[in-house]
């Protein structure tokens, strides 16, 4: 699970090419401690830049397992092509960039039996015509061991 994740080629539509998204986390792995600064570099290849109308970058946790999915977004940024407003966004290249933010203290990544909590960096590209493409890259917050079913209660 460590190191950059690369999306496999996938055709979005007849007119669009195949995005390949690479996210590189700081350091040697994708394991972070609570409160640590997340630094992730991303690069999108194989896409015609002029067809991208907007890019959303987010850092989020979500639940998996038996229950309905819950989602918590701790960082969100959306840049619309041709509408860069801040100085930082002035020289913005839609298909490369860096996400940097201080991670919260919780919730920690958790691998339970019916509840799992995962952290990820998501990159969502919006194309001309309204279709979108999302690439998700998992990292771990904290070092909680995997849960195992306990011994049954002795009667």
């Amino acid at each position, binding site marked *: 699970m460590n190191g950059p994740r690369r999306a496999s080629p996938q055709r979005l539509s007849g007119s669009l090419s195949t995005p390949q998204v690479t996210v590189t986390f700081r350091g040697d*792995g994708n394991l972070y401690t609570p*409160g640590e600064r997340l630094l992730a570099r991303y690069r999108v290849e194989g896409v015609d830049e002029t067809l991208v109308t907007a890019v959303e970058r987010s850092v989020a946790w979500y639940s998996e397992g038996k229950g309905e999915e*819950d989602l918590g977004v701790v960082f969100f940024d959306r840049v619309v092509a041709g509408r860069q407003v801040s100085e930082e966004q002035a020289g913005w290249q839609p298909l490369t960039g860096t996400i940097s933010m201080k991670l919260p203290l919780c919730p920690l990544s958790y691998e339970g039996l*019916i509840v799992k909590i995962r952290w990820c960096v998501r990159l*969502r590209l919006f194309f001309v015509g309204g279709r979108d493409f999302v690439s998700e890259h998992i990292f771990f917050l904290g070092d909680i061991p995997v849960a195992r079913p306990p011994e049954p209660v002795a009667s």
Partner: protein
Amino acid sequence: MRLPSFFSKKRGERRTGLPAWGSLGEALYYAVLLAAGLVIGGLMLTGVAVPEWRINNRFVEVSGRLVGKGVARHTTVDLFGVRRKAWRPAVLVEYPVNGELVRSWNTAGLAETASRREVAVGLVTEQELGQTVPCWYDPDQVTTVVLKRGYSWWFWLLTLLLPGALVAFGGSGLLHAAGGWGRSEERRAAEVWGVLQRLARPLAEAEGYPTIPACDNLVNSPGTVLRFRLPTESPEAWTVLGSGLFAGLWNAVVVVLAIGAGFDVAGGQIDWWLLGLLAPFSLVGLLAIWLFFRRVLLVTAIGPSHLEISDHPLRPGGCYDVLLSQAGSVAFRRLELVLELEEQATYRQGTDVRTERQVVWREVVRCWNRVEPLPGTPFEAEVQVRVPPRAMHSFHSTHNAVSWRLVLRGQPERWPALLRVFPVVIFPASEAAAAGAATAVQQKRHEVAS
């Protein structure tokens, strides 16, 4: 031609689709509910509210004269297919309209409908022919006349309840769909709808620790020996409350049925359907009362359990003193205090909302065999609870939860098993401990890299 995908498709880590189509489907669903609510509400208004409003505001008041009387019969069919007759007093009123006399029959309101003909005849007998009465006629249709005015508010409330609920549900859903129109789930969560969802969460969060439930109600009761006394979440208490509510409601229904049957018998009529239902209903009612008192006896006989703790909230790696106090005169073959971690997941299955619980970690803190309390003195024991250094913190989101609790289980000599739950909240490791953990993480990174 490529058809649009209505919903986003999960393919490994990525999804493609047209988010607007998903929003459109959701919006259509709520729009149909809203439209249904508006249509039903409109029909209710035109059928009940507008006629009453016209009577009270548009009908012309005149002085009329009773020139005839009788009773009107109505036949209805109930749920069991039984035809029932009802009788209403009716009077023939003569009143002036633009200089001409008009005659029209008027039946009384629903409140004066009688199931027995003699009652309706008795009511109409009180009216004297030739007497002058105030009446109101419809200027658009002069043969429509009423002898009473006013509003039946309770009827309005009942008839507007269903469309009101549909309009509220459909309208709020439509607003929600409009708010998320063409927006990604991350954007919705980060913007105003995410804030609204956080506000609507059933449990408050601890300051600075998102998704960890606040433990204010766990630290507001001081202990007699240790710092805090933990509140209990006894399943037995809920069982007693539930059985008490059921017994009360069921027997209330039985009493109402019995009163109705009693009046029928006194009036010389015997409704065999009602009497046939009453016998098994009474039996179930008596059984419910017996079960309720049995549960009350079980809860009160064993006696209350108290747990005090030296500090709260707990932290991974921490060690805490716990004082257990079990009152009552019941002897236990076995009594044990356990620290448990329970996962809770809420999901939809069809139209049902289900919650599944699973204990994923359990450690016996202490176990006592052959507990014989002395008369008038509760059984007391002080133990130490150690939280594992890499324990998961308490977590609570809209549909998922990870909860810690101290559980007291007992096997009394002659009574059913005892189970009392004392929830606790575990925060993540402190900043200092997190710094130590960071070193361990760095080491792990190097291990992975090498």
